[in-house]
């Protein structure tokens, strides 16, 4: 193959679908390394501390799309101190120096400042796509900079960021010449937006396919916007709690009915139950529905809506839907692939309307289910075993029993057998979160059966180092391991150091590892003393 001209080699490489494949071919020989690096268009950095930004931009000068992830997953739950790091600045600065052809930037769990956004907006004349997920540190002023300078902007997608509100003017910074928007998501912006500016922006964006509004947008504005977007595929509503005026809602329904391409719906916020029937005409065509931020809808409101969504593939909902509601979902939504049930009450010692029964009902009614996130207050081994048999196609299975170390609600036993059944039956499982009372036994099962597992989250589980070691030794494809409040110590930490070379990150907090143990592992990124709660170690390794 070394006798082929470089153009041919480059063309062959263009068929490689994944980053890891391209990484692999670049290791074959120097020629291939050069060809690969110069033709690489998309670079994915799973851990921003695994490699310096300068090295990335020097190696891949022609990169068009850069994705960088910062803080570890457990930062979502306030386990990482606020000034830990994950700064976007160095990445944007390095790209601004060396890759002016950059068109797309996606960042997750990073700290982004308004200055960073300003630099981004001014440095890349062909910039098209900005996606920020769970980021913080910037304000609506930074968004104004993006709006005003990125003339070719196609996507501005802000998902669950903490954005400081400095007024509604940012939206007005999109120039009249900006007509290229395909996707606009500002649902996480807390403040008002200028409805006139929004309507005008939508009116001049004929390619708009995805629009997610924030809760300041009124029903009337929404209706006016929808009239302009008959090709909309994904909509996040504004607020649906205006003083109930039938005419406004009738207008909304007729506007919605024109959106024949609309497949995905979210928002709702504190929607009044009275408004919900006005959405009914849309339900039959929906494949995605997110009602998980809407505690104002009770079980009957929810089931009336969801039971009409016969094509639903993805459902995010609060536990107010109750077991009975989940049974209705199971009988109506036969195409369901992804279900997330969030708690409406974060009180660990409380009760919720969903139990193991709801989960079993879903599993028997929805055999295509492959992705689950389920918060509940109780679970049984029997239920998990049944679920595993019903749904062997799970790729992501995350179960969170709110009370730590809670045993099987029927037998009082640990939930080892239940999770054991999940990993045994679901041979394609890639992500797993376990909870409840668990002994070393469950880790023995995971190590033995979960051959394709890439990410494992453990909390308040296990008895001895053997648990963690079984996972480290058995799960050949493990990339991310996060553990909190579990009795694993240095023996487990050091039991398979070579394994870390194949992993992206390890998180251990409030475990039994010591400072000395951390020192003995090469390549520590960050360790600090958590006072009396034990050591916290984060290893960040190769790309």
């Amino acid at each position, binding site marked *: 193959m070394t006798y082929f001209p470089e153009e041919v080699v480059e063309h062959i490489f263009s068929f490689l679908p994944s980053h890891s494949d391209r990484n692999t071919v670049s290791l074959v020989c120097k020629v291939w390394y050069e060809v690969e690096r110069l033709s690489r268009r998309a670079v994915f950095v799973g851990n921003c501390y695994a490699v310096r930004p300068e090295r990335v931009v020097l190696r891949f000068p022609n990169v068009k799309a850069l994705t960088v992830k910062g803080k570890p997953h457990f930062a979502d*739950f306030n386990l990482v101190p606020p000034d830990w790091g994950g700064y976007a600045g160095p990445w944007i600065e390095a790209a601004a120096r060396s890759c002016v052809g950059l068109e797309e930037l996606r960042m997750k769990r990073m700290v982004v400042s308004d200055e960073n956004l300003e630099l981004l907006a001014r440095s890349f004349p062909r910039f098209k796509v900005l996606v920020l997920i769970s980021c913080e540190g910037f304000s609506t002023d930074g968004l104004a900079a993006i709006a005003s300078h990125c003339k070719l902007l196609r996507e501005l997608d802000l998902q669950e960021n*903490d954005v400081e509100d400095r007024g509604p003017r940012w939206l007005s910074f999109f120039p009249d010449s900006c007509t290229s928007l395909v996707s606009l998501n500002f649902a996480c912006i807390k403040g008002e937006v200028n409805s006139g500016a929004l309507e005008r922006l939508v009116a001049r964006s004929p390619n708009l396919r995805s629009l997610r509004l924030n809760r300041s947008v009124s029903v009337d504005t929404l209706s006016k916007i929808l009239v302009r977007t008959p090709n909309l595929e994904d909509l996040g509503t504004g607020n649906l709690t205006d003083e109930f005026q039938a005419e406004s809602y009738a207008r909304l329904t007729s506007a919605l009915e024109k959106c024949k391409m609309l497949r995905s719906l979210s928002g709702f916020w504190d929607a009044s139950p009275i408004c919900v029937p006005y959405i009914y005409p849309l339900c039959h065509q929906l494949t995605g529905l997110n009602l998980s931020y809407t505690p104002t809808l009770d079980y009957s409101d929810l089931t009336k809506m969801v039971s009409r969504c016969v094509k639903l593939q993805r459902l995010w909902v609060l536990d107010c839907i109750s077991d009975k509601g989940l049974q209705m979902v199971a009988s109506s939504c036969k195409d369901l692939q992804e279900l997330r049930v969030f708690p409406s*009450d974060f009180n660990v010692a*409380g009760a919720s309307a969903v139990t193991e029964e709801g989960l079993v009902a879903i599993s028997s009614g929805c055999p295509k289910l492959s992705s689950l996130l389920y918060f509940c207050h109780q679970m049984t081994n029997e239920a998990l075993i049944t679920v595993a048999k019903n749904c062997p196609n799970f790729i992501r299975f995350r179960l969170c029993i709110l*009370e730590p170390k809670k045993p099987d609600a029927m037998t009082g036993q640990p939930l080892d057998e239940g999770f054991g059944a999940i990993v045994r039956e679901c041979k394609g499982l890639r992500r797993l979160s376990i909870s409840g009372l668990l002994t070393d036994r469950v880790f023995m099962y995971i190590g033995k059966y979960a051959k394709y597992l890439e990410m494992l989250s453990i909390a308040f589980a296990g008895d001895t180092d053997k648990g963690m070691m079984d996972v480290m030794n058995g799960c050949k494809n493990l990339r991310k391991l996060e553990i909190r409040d579990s009795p694993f110590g240095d023996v487990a930490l050091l039991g398979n150091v070579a394994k870390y070379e194949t992993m992206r990150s390890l998180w251990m907090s409030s475990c039994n590892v010591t400072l000395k143990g951390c020192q003995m592992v090469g390549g520590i990124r960050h360790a600090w003393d958590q006072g009396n709660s034990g050591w916290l170690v984060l290893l960040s390794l190769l790309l």
Partner: protein
Amino acid sequence: MSPPLELDYIGLSPPAAAAAAAGADDDLKGTELRLGLPGSGSPERRVAAATATTLDLLPAKGAKRGFSDEAPPPSPVAAAGKGKKVAEEADNDKKVAATPQPAAKAQVVGWPPIRSYRKNTMATTQLKGSKEDAEAKQGQGFLYVKVSMDGAPYLRKIDLKTYKNYKDLSTALEKMFNGFSTGKDGLSEYRKDGEYVLTYEDKDGDWMLVGDVPWEMFADSCRRLRIMKGSDAIGLAPRAADKSKNRN
């Protein structure tokens, strides 16, 4: 508590520790992607010296993270401010013997694993839902219950949390349903004498007369309301009093 430890990027400030870390690093220097030793131009990052304040190990008391302060089973009067717990205590009595819950269990940092964004967004929604300040209620900021009236062709739904007392409720219901005459202090006038009586179904599924228990207790146990003909309501009053006694 030991003094906070300042830690640098790769290892630890004390020289002995740095040497040990450097030794382990030799193996990895051969790989192309370096791990960024200190001073090699790696991104500036201030390592947080962990203190209780930095990591917020002991969350502030109150509803900030949505955890309630664990308390021993409250008396019915004190329970008025504790929301749903009252009914749950009663339920627990019927099932297993209640296990004492240590206070520490409720205050675990970063648990349950819910994103801050979700917690903050839900808190905002709940604040909007309840007209009073949110500190009293740990749960949802709204409580929609169905209201039926004997003889009326359709039901209504009201949010109990928008009312502060029985009088407000009575006034609102009067507006909703015609032919519902008011007395001086609301509902107590209706027993047996008035044309209609306001009753409710509580969490146990029993039908009770409205007005016997403190407002908060009523609001937390009420599942639905029914405006009954007075003649049908005979016999309800004694049960309400007995039930309150059982709860003590």
